[in-house]
């Protein structure tokens, strides 16, 4: 392979904001002189649409299917193949103005606070307390908080943080709601020590999260579930809606 084509974008993290200039260089390395009939640079923004499984005739497009690429073609004569190099980059929405106000949430989970319980009597007794430092989250900052198992009759098997993305597409006929688990982080493994606070800490995954978005017929929202699994396979979930923003 004599000739190699490469695109080098100036920013190492390949993150750009609307209105910015994406700059960089195209590098052609070759031992011999290269003849060409033009170098073409193409930029593409692509949304992957798929047919909704739920309502006929509706397209769904979800956040992670948006893809921006930069493509460089080196045209050559008939005998030599054209060279192509594709480079992906990321566009972040412009940071919002102003400061996000922290909105701490305290929570207590006991058998009594639970909903959707079939036989409340058979539930082992427990008391879990904790707090999230804020449900208004800056997307680049971790979600933090604390959780204390004050008391639990049954041994605890597992405590997890489940990050869920909820997308809603809607119009006059109705709306489609789709909830996807995008990250699951275990914060406690095994029967944790009682009355000792366990940290809640989760970094938002860069490729699967975006600022919370609300428009008339399209919404992207995020929620976090604290899931406690007891040794007798009882599953306790507490849900917290989050508001993500980029500053």
């Amino acid at each position, binding site marked *: 392979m004599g000739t190699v084509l490469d695109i080098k974008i100036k920013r190492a993290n390949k993150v750009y904001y609307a209105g910015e200039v994406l700059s960089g260089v195209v590098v052609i390395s070759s031992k011999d002189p290269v003849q060409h009939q033009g170098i073409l640079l193409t930029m593409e923004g692509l949304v992957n649409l798929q047919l909704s499984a739920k309502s006929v005739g509706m397209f769904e497009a979800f956040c992670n299917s948006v893809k921006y690429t930069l493509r460089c073609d080196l045209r050559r004569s008939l005998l030599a193949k054209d060279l192509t190099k594709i480079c992906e980059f990321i566009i972040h929405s412009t940071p919002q103005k102003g400061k996000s106000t922290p909105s701490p949430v305290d929570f207590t989970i006991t058998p009594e606070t639970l909903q959707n319980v079939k036989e409340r009597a058979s539930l082992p007794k427990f008391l879990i307390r904790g707090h999230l430092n804020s449900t208004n989250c800056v997307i680049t900052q971790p979600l933090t908080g604390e959780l204390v198992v004050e008391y639990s009759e049954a*041994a605890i098997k597992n405590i997890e943080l489940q990050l869920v993305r909820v997308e809603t597409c809607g119009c006059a006929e109705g709306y489609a709601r789709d909830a996807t688990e995008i990250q699951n*982080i275990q914060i*406690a*493994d*095994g*029967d*944790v*020590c009682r009355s*000792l606070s366990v*940290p809640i800490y989760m970094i938002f995954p860069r490729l699967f999260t975006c600022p919370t978005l609300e428009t008339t017929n399209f919404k992207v929202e995020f929620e976090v579930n604290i899931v406690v699994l007891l040794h007798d396979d009882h599953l306790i979930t507490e849900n917290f809606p989050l508001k993500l923003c980029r500053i």
Partner: protein
Amino acid sequence: IHVFNRHSRQRNYKTEFESCRPEIVPLDFGDYHPLKPITVIESKTKKMGRKGSTSSTSSSSSSSMVDPLSSVLDGTDPLSMFAAIADPVTTTVNMDGSRKKRDRDDNSLVGTDFEPWSSKRGDILARYTTTEKLSIVSCKTTTSTSAMSEKVRTRLEELDDLEEGSQRELLNLTQQDYMNRIEELNQSLKDAWASDQKVKALKIVIQCSKLLSDTSVIQFYPSKFVLITDILDTFGKLVYERILSMCMDNRSILSDHFSPENVNDTAKETCLNWFFKIASIRELIPRFYVEAAILNCNKFLSKTGISECLPRLTCMIRGIGDPLVSVYARAYLCRVGMEVAPHLKESLNKNFFDFLLTFKQIHGDTVQNQLVVQGVEIPLYLTLYSPAIDWILQCIAYHAPEVLLTEMMERCKKLGNNALLLNSVMSAFRAEFIATRAMDFIGMIKECDESGFPKHLLFRSLGLNLALADPPESDRLQILNEAWKVITKLKNPQDYINCAEVWVEYTCRHFTKREVNTVLADVIKHMTPDRAFEDAYPQLHSIIKKVIAYFHDFSILFSVEKFLPFLDMFQKENVRVEVCKCIMEAFIKHQQEPTKDPVILNALLHVCKTMHDSVNALTLEDEKRMLAVLINGFIKMVSFGRDFEQQLSFYVETRSMFCNLEPVLVQLIHSVNKLTMETRRVMKGNHSRKTAAFVRACVAFCFITIPSLTGIFTRLNLYLHSGQVALANQCLSQADAFFRAAVSLVPEVPKMINIDGKMRPSESFLLEFLSNLFSTLLIVPDHPEQGVLFLVRGLLNVIQDYTWEDNSDDKIRIYTNVLHLLSAMNQETYLYHVDKVDSNDSLYGGDSKFLAENNKLCETVITQILEHLKALGKDETLKRQSVLALSFFNSILAHGDLRNNKLNQLSVNLWNLAQRHGCADTRTMVKTLEYIKKRSKQPEMSHLSELALRLPLQTRT
């Protein structure tokens, strides 16, 4: 063939010697002397980091000479350069930065006084083992990659495959299998990394760390921790180095103390990517371990990265429910923290306090149930914590103020069943700290719950501290009594000996032989029933080592009554020999004065006998040599002073004891020879009847011992040496016998001999020996019943019959030496004499018959030489002919009387022969001629000038 009469030149050795002696020059000691040590005054400083703090390096030497080594290396030798970089002390000394900076540097490196993890891991692996079957979840490794590329799978699929498809659980592994498996994973991690499969590498590491959440076969957990954290360390290093290499532009290399501003964006981005990837690992334990493994990489991102990360990771461990798993996670974090940022002490303390908070969990239901299922006893379970807690406390205690240590101790005291913590405190804290509070500790140990952590381990730990640091003088005896009271009650011999081994050192250190004797007696009492000592050889051995380390005076050592009975416990031969070796080494090292103490002699003879008797056909040469050196060391240290007869009988006794070790016999012969000469010295050369008989006995000893040796040159040289000694002691017939034995042994010299395991031709050794023998023969008087020059004739016959190498001229060299001997014998007074022995010069007094005999011999020898020269007349040997001819010429020049016409003619012929075929080195010939001319100017040498005229120089063609 030239037939001629040889005439030896008359020599006046005295004047010759004076004329030859170099002019005496008074030595000026201020001058340079080659052996005088070079004092190098060095001011060495090392450039540290890119801040470029200091000066150049220079080395200057006070003597005028430049040390060739240092000059080659351009001043600084590479080792001291490394040392300068590695050694924090030098670094700080040379830092010309502000004091603040210096302090920081001091902190950011752990000194050598910190016992590193690497020294612990071996112990842990050896101590925490299992015979239970283990299981491991692993992926197919190594082989899979190539097969898949054939199927043209995408890389992504491959990774999925790694995660799901090929994963399988391997059950019923033995511990060794399991360890191999982990090693395989380690290897595949390195392979994956090398082949640029970073994601695969990460998956392997995650998988490995997952194994640490598995506590089945709990007694193996500490070892598992060691093995897996090795892999994590490897991974951490790989990632760090990779990112560091990205920071290196072509021109600059990032120094060790780089700051994040100097890291380029690509490197930062890569680093960030790693952290993001790790942050999304689902399970807590792998996420914790992998992030801890690359903690060091925070340096690339921000200055405060590590100091923010450590507390977070410390908190994160709280989520680990199993107390054992969590304490090991803490140990790992402390270990990484100590390596990366030892100045961040708060996290270390926090880890320990957090551990104390979860301490109660150990007695909780979850743990107890698990132990019941696995059938593990509480005391055993508790010992599993020790390596981790020891380590955490060691990190905390490193350079920690006394106050902190006291606080830690108080906190431990407050918890129930604190024996586990107490033990770790004793293992981790400074020995001095423990030693000064030894009585307190004994009190605390006594209060501990019997059913918990094994008490003997506590006493062992305390003993280890007391071996290193001294408790207050007033407490010492009480400490020993209190401790031993408990130790002696231990039922299990293994527990007992592990404790006793440690406390022996304390006893030896502070008390007399009486106490040591008591302790040894107690050990014997405990270890003898049921032959318990058989399982405790290493500990018993270590006890012996400790005792001899403290008792340098062997008369005291052997007066410890129980010492020898103690030795009797070593009943397995190889162990016993090892112990004996130790004792002998100590004796040789510490015994200053020769001894005749019967207690020492008896005991050590017994010890040496044991070593000697272990030698058999299978013993390695090295081992034999080692044993012989030790026994010889002992023999040399035995002296009965003026009681020479006692000394000789000692040698006779040892000869019979150590007959299997040749070097010992050789030593004995030398010792006896020394004894003979010593007798001579005492008698000032005039033996009385009694001493004459004694020296003859000594000589006889040598004469009958030498034949039992196998080494041919050993025998030859000893014959010669002993013969010389006999001669010096006026034992003429004995000396004669020695020389005759040597002469008759010469034909047996093989062509090749074994030297250090290699076969070498023996001729050069023979040449050396014979020359030595000739020098002695000069002064050996002829035997009255044998003919003139009987020994020389005999030797000549032997030389004649010996099968010499075809292509060597050694035979002729020897003949030439014989000529030198004969010419020396022709002198009126010989060059040297032995006191009180009449040599042939005074025996014959220049008798003409003797001279005639001598001349006849010369003639024969010369004929032999000339025949050989003639035989060398072939093309391929011309060079040799020339060299030999010249050397023979030189011999004649030095020893012959050239006023004799025939000899004169012979020398001219030889001169021409040397030059005939153009093989001679012209420069040598010129020099020789010059020498002759110079000599001719000396008195009575004028005839040489005529000779010189007859010696033509061949012109170079």
